[in-house]
């Protein structure tokens, strides 16, 4: 199937705002919403399997929450959850290509400016590398 909307979700403020927009877009286009959670533990510490299991458990829970949140906004949107064992940006890009998605929706501020500069923010990576449309949803000011 092609033409889904992909949503990057990590449970942070930015992705919650993006979730609301993505639900609206999916409803408007009448297409399923694929919620993606990407994770990759740092292998340097060894003992990766347990950490990975633990992170997957967290991811499962986050995705369940996200699905609930989508249905609270609009119960008519079909939700597909995807837990991807890869870095978040790679996970989103790959899901986009695999499903031949209509667009990728992502929040603008997934972490502070320092960490963004050090790591390269997921949002920047997706915006610059995606071959399909990306919808970046800004987080409203706190005050």
């Amino acid at each position, binding site marked *: 199937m092609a033409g889904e909307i992909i949503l990057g979700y990590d449970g942070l403020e930015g992705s919650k705002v993006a979730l609301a927009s993505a639900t609206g877009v999916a409803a408007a286009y009448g297409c399923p919403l694929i919620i993606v959670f990407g994770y990759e533990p740092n292998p340097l510490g060894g*003992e990766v399997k347990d950490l990975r299991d633990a992170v997957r458990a967290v991811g499962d829970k986050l995705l369940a929450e996200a699905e609930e949140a989508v249905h609270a906004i609009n119960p008519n949107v079909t939700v597909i959850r995807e837990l991807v064992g890869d870095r978040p940006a790679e996970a989103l890009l790959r899901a986009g290509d695999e499903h031949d998605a209509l667009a990728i929706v992502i929040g603008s501020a997934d972490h502070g400016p320092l960490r963004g500069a050090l790591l390269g923010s997921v949002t920047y990576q997706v915006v610059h590398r995606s071959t399909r449309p990306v919808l970046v949803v800004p987080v409203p000011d706190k005050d």
Partner: protein
Amino acid sequence: MAAATVDNEAGSKGLKSGALGLASATVVGVASTAPGYSLAAGLGFITVAVGVRSPAIMWISFIPMACIAAAFFYLNRADPDCGTNFTWVSRAIGPKSGWMGGWSSIIADLVIMPSLALIAAKYTFLIFGFQSQADSVWWTLVLGIIFILGMTWICVVGIELSASTQMGMLVTELVVLVMFSVWAFVKVFGDKIKPFTDNADPKNIVHYAAMHPAISWLKPSGFGGISGLTAGVLGAVFLYWGWDTAVSVNEECEDSNRTPGLAAVLSTFILVGIYVIVAIAAQAIAGPDFLTNHSDDVLAATGKLVFGTTGFGWLANKLLIIAVLSSAAASCQTTILPAARTALSMASHRALPKRYAEIDRQHLTPATSSWVFGIFSCAWFAGLVMISRASGGDVLGWSVLSVGLMISYYYGQTGIACAIYYRKYLFKSAKNFFLVGLLPLVGGIALGAIFVKSLWDMTNPDYADGTAWLGMSPVLWIGLSAFLGGIPIMFWWQTRDRTFFDRGRDPIDSRPPPEGGEPLPPLVGVRIEG
């Protein structure tokens, strides 16, 4: 409405298979060992134990390490990397032994943190030319604690250096160490280093002179008896400690049956090469006494003699400092990460309270166990410095000596566990017999013997320059209390939750062959909540 969960995984178990090649896996192994820091912190103590023969100790200790590497490799096939030795020993020997194995690896990590932080703090001051702060106990304690907390924060936030950054840092470190050695040989053979006298302490005036390297430095004899040999090997075990991470990334490697094992072996070979060369070079510069008298930072002290302090030498010294500093920083990360993850593994198999298995939902790291570990490290660091001040001894240095006990315990235990676990398969082929049975067993027995002999030798106050606490060397007290401290905790936890302790070892028929088989069910049903 229809809702479905698609588990989109590359590879069978959700691992990104084929992500690491041989070079990257070897980088992981060598970087975890941190040769620059290990030499700076450990070479002096080995020289204290065996004098002029420290280069020989380097290659001798390599042999049991290679044997244990085989054990890690094969046990990892049966149950890849959850808690490494903790899991394997629980499966092979029994839960209590496994628990103590996990405990000693966490405690070894904890005990080494102050030394790591001290070196990092000291070298940070040196890089900016603050010599008096670098020599001050309090300044290095303050900066060291900031350093530990900062590194813990980095581990919790999950900032990871990319493989290429790691590679860059490691190459710099190795190049600087080689440059240091070559420069030292040029100066020593050109007789450019004049004999000199250290009269800073009027009661203890020492004369130093350069020595030409001799083949006899590599001879496996003249260590001052078995006690000298075991003390030397115990120190060298500490230097090599860390290569096992190369095996831990097993499933991420391309060709995972071959690459990780090869990477571990390759890392130990790179390490033995570097260690032998640097040990010879450092000793040639001003003799073994200079190393023993500067045992807390061998490289900074000898670096000044090799490179001088002006012009190019100034730059080269800074490079040496940067190499050790980045090595200590990398090692700090590769100490907090596995300690926190062993705790996570133990908690998720109900061998420790559940909260140590908590995953931070924002950063997806084992935040609780990392912070607890970081804070305990700071407390341990501060405690050691206080006791050092009160007793006037080098308590921090002694604690480094005692780490070898913990490491040799859990490495040795893993070697023996490998032979026990696979005993059904050992006589199926010659390869199994040698690689899965004999080598791990020999390595395990060697390290076990070192453990026992060192314990015995540590009862003698001479082990710590004649300092005695209740008639025995402080190294013994520090090592034993840290190690045995686990036993009451283990029994306390057993009264709270018996699940892990009641599982027993794996039935012999359920054990997969060493060449790999069906994935094993988890040690204890995993119950992790976010």
